[in-house]
């Protein structure tokens, strides 16, 4: 009889009111502004490098002698995959924690700042060897390619900085729960908890990997077990991908329904999606290793199930999102089988950008499922198809959601307002980005099917006819990349305009309410300790068999290679 608890009490109402009147505290706002500034500076630099790389890959731009393709590729990957995503995720969720939990604790704020500077320090350490062409190992920095040890030491600091922020978030959530017994953690903070749990447990394997690489890169040990290192890397690499995805999903469930003037999807099902994604994520790393030698076929077969299982909560999300859209539009008088779509606010960038992001996840997710299966992966594994895939998932589904968020998040933390002009700029930016990404990612997918390899600079392979037939697609890649660069410039302008120059005012932090007649959410959803234990058991099930095999039947090991 005590299994359920009410959703909102008086204290919550009071806090909501206080937040509405006063907005975010200056210190919490400054923290998020700093994180978001770094994220968008990273996108500016990463975007420029991406354009350089795309033009070079299309054979249209010769790089100067002091800069090579793999150097650019490494920096582009690190800036966008690690810096942009980590800084945006932390900045956004810390604003969410501050808003929904009644402000950050002073201790937690300090931890987030220590984490900030540790990550910046680590990043500077990692960038120096990249600039010196001592670390052109690409974002997938596993052996046998070896970078300068300084690069890996930098990565250690980035991981430590992320852990500071993760534990800060746990402390803040735990303190709120103690102060609010019997209540559910507000939904956005629930998402934040899930994301930080994944950030911590997902970065454990890469921390182990990097600690085994450092002595090898210094030359203190001669060889390294490549299969173990790759497996540890992908346990992190795949989780990282899903961390941004879960960040975007949090906005789809919580923010977007409010922006369109509706209510959010069932609270219990939303929380189940978060829990399922957290428990099942880490083991997904194996589908990045389908063509790795050394993993037996039955283990790969088992992992197809584990990977496809992650698709299930995503299908739940797809259903939930379109149900929310339809319900909201019909309440506003929308009619017809699909005619209700006219009632959605298409001119509002805060809706348009996340909507296109969601729609892009339909082909992106389908492509992902295709790649997860053994035979189809054999066809596309080392081709540009995969590059097209992750530009569609990250560059579109995730990053466009992030773009859509900044039009209220930055005004909210800077105590300014979104102007109609910037909204219009945002709509145009969204259209340019969409066209650019469809052209670029579409060309990458297609040329990949025709056999063009990834992680390879431009070559006609002695004017081989097949290689020459890729050229038209590579031109499209360059055209798409150019449009995306225009999109980046517009976006960065919008970010810094909203942060420093937009008119002062109060912007609301949009969090949708649940339906009035909804059944209360059961209390078991809050048992994070249990979910973490389930996750550890699942990771054990996935990794014990192959890891024991790699170590007991280990080959002689590999010395470090410098291939560039």
């Amino acid at each position: 009889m005590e299994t359920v608890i009410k959703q909102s009490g008086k204290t919550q109402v009071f806090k909501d009111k206080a937040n509405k009147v006063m907005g975010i505290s200056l210190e919490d706002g400054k923290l998020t502004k700093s994180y978001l500034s770094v994220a968008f500076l990273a996108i500016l630099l990463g975007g420029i490098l991406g354009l350089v790389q795309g033009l070079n890959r299309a054979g249209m731009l010769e790089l100067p002698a002091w800069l090579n393709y793999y150097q650019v590729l490494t920096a582009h990957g690190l800036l966008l995959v690690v810096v942009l995503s980590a800084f945006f995720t932390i900045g956004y969720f810390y604003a969410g924690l501050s808003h929904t939990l009644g402000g950050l604790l002073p201790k937690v704020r300090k931890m987030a700042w220590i984490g900030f500077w540790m990550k910046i320090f680590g990043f500077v350490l990692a960038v120096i060897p990249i600039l010196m062409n001592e670390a052109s190992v690409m974002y997938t920095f596993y052996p046998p390619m070896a970078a300068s040890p300084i690069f890996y030491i930098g990565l250690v600091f980035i991981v430590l900085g992320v852990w500071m922020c993760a534990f800060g978030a746990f402390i803040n959530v735990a303190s709120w729960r103690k102060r609010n017994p019997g209540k559910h953690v507000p939904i956005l903070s629930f998402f934040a908890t899930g994301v930080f749990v994944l950030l911590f447990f997902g970065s454990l394997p890469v921390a182990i990997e990097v600690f085994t690489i450092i002595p090898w890169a210094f030359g203190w040990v001669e060889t390294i077990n490549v299969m173990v290192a790759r497996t540890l890397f992908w346990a992190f690499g795949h989780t990282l991908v899903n961390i941004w995805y879960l960040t975007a999903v949090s906005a789809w469930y919580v923010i977007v329904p409010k922006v369109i003037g509706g209510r959010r999807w069932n609270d219990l099902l939303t929380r189940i999606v978060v829990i399922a994604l957290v428990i099942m994520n880490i083991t997904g790393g194996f589908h990045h290793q389908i063509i790795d030698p050394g993993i037996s076929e039955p283990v790969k077969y088992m992992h197809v199930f584990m990977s496809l299982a992650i698709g299930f909560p995503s299908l739940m999300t797809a259903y939930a999102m379109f149900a929310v859209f339809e319900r909201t539009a019909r309440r506003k008088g929308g009619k017809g089988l699909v005619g209700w779509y006219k009632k959605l606010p298409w001119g509002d960038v805060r809706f348009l950008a996340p909507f296109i992001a969601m729609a892009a996840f339909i082909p992106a997710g389908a492509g992902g499922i295709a790649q997860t299966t053994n035979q189809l992966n054999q066809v596309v594994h080392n081709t540009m198809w995969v590059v097209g895939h992750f530009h569609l998932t990250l560059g579109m589904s995730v990053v466009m959601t992030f773009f859509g968020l900044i039009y209220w998040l930055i005004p909210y933390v800077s105590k300014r307002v979104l102007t109609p002009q910037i909204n219009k700029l945002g709509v145009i930016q969204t259209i340019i980005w969409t066209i650019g990404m469809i052209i670029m990612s579409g060309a990458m997918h297609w040329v990949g099917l025709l056999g063009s390899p990834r992680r390879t600079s431009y070559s006609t392979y002695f004017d081989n006819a097949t290689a020459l037939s890729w050229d038209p697609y590579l031109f499209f890649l360059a055209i798409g990349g150019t449009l995306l660069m225009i999109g980046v410039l517009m976006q960065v302008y919008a970010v810094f305009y909203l942060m420093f120059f937009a008119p002062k005012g109060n912007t609301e932090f949009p969090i949708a309410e649940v339906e009035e007649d909804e059944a209360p959410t059961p209390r078991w959803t809050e048992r994070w300790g249990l979910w973490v234990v389930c996750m550890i058991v699942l990771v054990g099930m996935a990794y014990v068999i192959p890891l024991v095999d790699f170590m007991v039947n280990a080959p002689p090991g590999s010395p470090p290679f410098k291939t560039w």
Partner: protein
Amino acid sequence: MMKSPVYGLLLLFALMLPPVANLLESIMITHMHMQMPLLIISGLFMAKFFQHRFPEFFSKWNENGVPGLLLFSIIMVYWSLPRTMDEALTLTSVEIFKFISLPFLAGVPLRDSWPKLSSFWKHALIIFFTILFLALGWLYIWSPVQLCNNYLIIEQITLGWGFISTAFAMVVYLIYSYFVDLSKYE
């Protein structure tokens, strides 16, 4: 209401199908860490049927839950021995005993006992199995000889690490329940 015993029985039948049983028994770790727990889970599902049918029996013989816990532990310990796994693969009678004992003598009593147990006994059970799993992990990993006639040494080592990782998960759970006082949040 009484759907879960049917699902339990279906799961048991599915596990008894020769191709399924052969597949799960062909690898040591899936034999012990997948087939056996699934058999117990089928018993957990079927327990409701027996509780409804024989309420007197359970209230008389399993009043405070400890006898059921003891029976569950004995069956579990028996099936943790390398020799019993070997026998299940070699002797049909032992194989049949496996398919009866794990659901009906481990799964059913566990389901009946769990709600009746105080948190002391629940934690005692988890601590007991944590220690047992660590010991078995140690045995399977560092045993200098092949313990089962039917499985290679590499499979034995894999199973050992499976025990250690399960024990690790239980340790995490114990630490969590020791440090986090759930009543403070309710």
